[in-house]
């Protein structure tokens, strides 16, 4: 079958503003949208810029807007989306070229929440013990691949780019509820600030956008609760 795509293009070396370009490529219905994009790039238009690596939804490179929703191009099948498939870069981050956005503002916010285990006690000679139930408390938020689909789908983030955003909150959650970590209070202080967790208006776009099916709003709710009741 032939697939039609409508792609938002921008090359800072040539363009003053973005423009749309249409392509038609051969594809199988079960092909990924990424396959169609790489078919364009390989055989029709080598100037198209996009990121890609694993091609099966675990590396987080190819997050983009597909028919106005944030998706991984490698996890979206051609047969599941309406044509022409409208492809745009993620919203709310500066565009470098075509579908490639500058991720640094996103990772800067990631680093703010201390995204690493803090525990300066001398570790035991073997592993720290953790029960199956304790481990389960933060299982969901360990799935995050930092693709930025959630943060760049969030209206609160669009209107205020200082907001830490759902992805950073997910990362914070992953450590706050880990029994081995000792910096929960410190992290909660960071999240309690003006641009922290209270910017979340429970709009659920992030849950809809997450390619890892993390229940982000639930995780954020648990953080809010921990702040209100000072329990974690």
């Amino acid at each position, binding site marked *: 079958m032939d697939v039609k795509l409508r792609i938002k293009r921008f090359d800072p070396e040539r363009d003053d503003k973005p423009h749309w370009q249409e392509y038609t490529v051969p594809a199988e219905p079960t092909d990924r949208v990424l396959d169609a994009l790489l078919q364009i790039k390989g055989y029709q238009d080598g100037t198209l810029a996009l990121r890609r690596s694993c091609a099966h939804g675990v590396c987080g490179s190819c997050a983009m807007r597909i028919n106005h929703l944030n998706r991984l191009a490698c996890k979206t099948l051609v047969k599941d989306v309406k044509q022409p498939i409208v492809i745009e870069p993620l919203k709310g981050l500066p565009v470098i070229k075509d579908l490639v956005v500058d991720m640094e503002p996103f990772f800067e916010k990631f680093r703010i929440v201390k995204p690493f285990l803090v525990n300066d006690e001398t570790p035991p000679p073997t592993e720290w*013990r953790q029960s199956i139930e304790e481990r389960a408390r933060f299982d969901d938020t360990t799935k995050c691949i930092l693709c930025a689909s959630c943060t760049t789908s969030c209206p609160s983030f669009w209107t205020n780019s200082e907001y830490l955003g759902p992805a950073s909150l997910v990362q914070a959650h992953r450590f706050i509820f880990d029994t081995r970590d000792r910096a929960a209070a410190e992290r909660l202080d960071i999240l309690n600030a003006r641009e922290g967790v209270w910017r979340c208006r429970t709009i659920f776009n992030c849950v809809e956008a997450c390619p890892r099916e993390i229940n982000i709003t639930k995780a954020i709710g648990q953080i809010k609760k921990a702040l209100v009741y000072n329990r974690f």
Partner: protein
Amino acid sequence: MYHNYDAVVIGGGGAGLMSAIQLSPKGSTAVLSKLHPMRSHTGAAQGGIGAALGNLEEDLWEWHMFDTVKGGDYLVDQDAAEIMAQDAIEAVYDLEHWGLPFDRTADGKIAQRPFGGHTRDYGKGIVRRACYAADRTGHMILQTLYQRAIRNRVDFFDEFQVVDICIEGGACHGVVAYEIATGELHTFRAKAVIVATGGFGRMFRVTSNAYSFTGDGQAMVYRKGLPLEDMEFFQFHPTGIRKMGILITEAVRGEGGILVNGQGERFMERYSPNLLDLAPRDVVSRAIHKEVLAGRGIDGKEYVHLDASHLGRDVVATKLPDIQDFCRTYLGIDPAVDPIPVEPTAHYAMGGIPTDVDGQVLADETNRPVPGFYAAGECACVSVHGANRLGSNSLLELMVFGRRAGRHMAEHIVQTDFLELKTGPEERMREELDRLLAGTGSENAAGLRKELREVMMNKVGVLREQKTLDEAVEAVRELKDRYRNVGLQDKGRTFNMELLVALELGYLLDLAEVTALSAAARHESRGAHTREDYPDRDDENWLKHTLAFRTDGGVTLKYKPVNVSFFEPKPRTY
């Protein structure tokens, strides 16, 4: 632009990050990665990391060492296997202490599951040795290491493609990198450099490997006149999703899944009566291939079924959630109900840049190290995998040898000074890149890559013979000729992925030639290298490592002995 760092790490995956974590407290450390480190292929590893913790039953590192040696069909350097099996335990505890969210046993220890070829008491039966976090162990390792590296304030240069390694006077003292966002070239002066760039499965049509797995590090080293070791040994993982090649972890079989042919037979009973579906990967991939050739594929086609439907919904959803997700997304099936269509998929390079057990790159068959130059991970060949790697030993290799290399580098950088760089190491690369950019040739890189992947899949795959291997060498050489005439449409400096893809194709072509030629020369069957015309292992003539050097005439092959100091080679049955 010039930068000075005590140490430069090329690659932001498991081995690179692990070495950076060791280095960063001791000296300034830069990690250069063509991707953001979180996109590295370590993150795609699923099933587990092997270590004889004995959390669920008795296990000894000596058994792990033996399994590794036998699994590698005795081409393993046994001193390296000893270190890996021993250090494994500490490496896994390190990861746990840094926050890795392993699954847990009922008493709160790290959970462990069976994996192919891992046995108790030197082959007496299957043992639970692979430590895991659901079926995203690699993802959790990559995350944990990246988190730790951030905590250690490692300097990251994301989306910097290293294009040249500066080796002068027999020592390494820096690299040249291309900044993808701007097209600018940077020279990094360093006292020590480590290559940790991963594998090159992208030269095969059906592969589990990421687009980025194009062997850049190996090819750059090879172009410096340094050898590549045992490149003929490339692992086909038995269970890739049909046609797509997406990995379906061995943990599916570890949890009890079985392989079934078109006649509904559990065919592994015939090939491995003892370990059955948990035989090593080379054994299982050959078995699938033979079933298919005998017309016993599903509907007589090129694939078989991996059946996990008897495991129950709970096990699938909690132990194999990503596998369930892949099956739903790409196949529209639920593995808790339906069998998964699978075929062998190009997965892992056992061969690579020869190193000693401290990660130092070795320059020749006398094992002379190159001062200041290191390699670790899939791009390296220590060699702990020999002719066939066991599942869960690759994540382990990243940790153990990334760590050892990092520690050795940390000593090296305090004992040495910066070497003076000759002027303009960037200039040569600028010329080469400009030449590629200016190219108006008629050849299309995507088309050439597709042809290469067909050639390698069809002629240098699971089963091999002289005629097709020789044809592959010729075909790759022809593609190399045509590659000189490659033309680019994108002439820009900003995020020019077309330029990078062309560079990567050049790397793949070099490595494909070496792989095919090394395979054509080895007249025996050992591990993953199966010759239909030489069906037996031949220890008398071939218990030796291949070293491939780039010379003016093409490729020169030399050989060096294998360390067999502990376990005498024996017939390999499972």
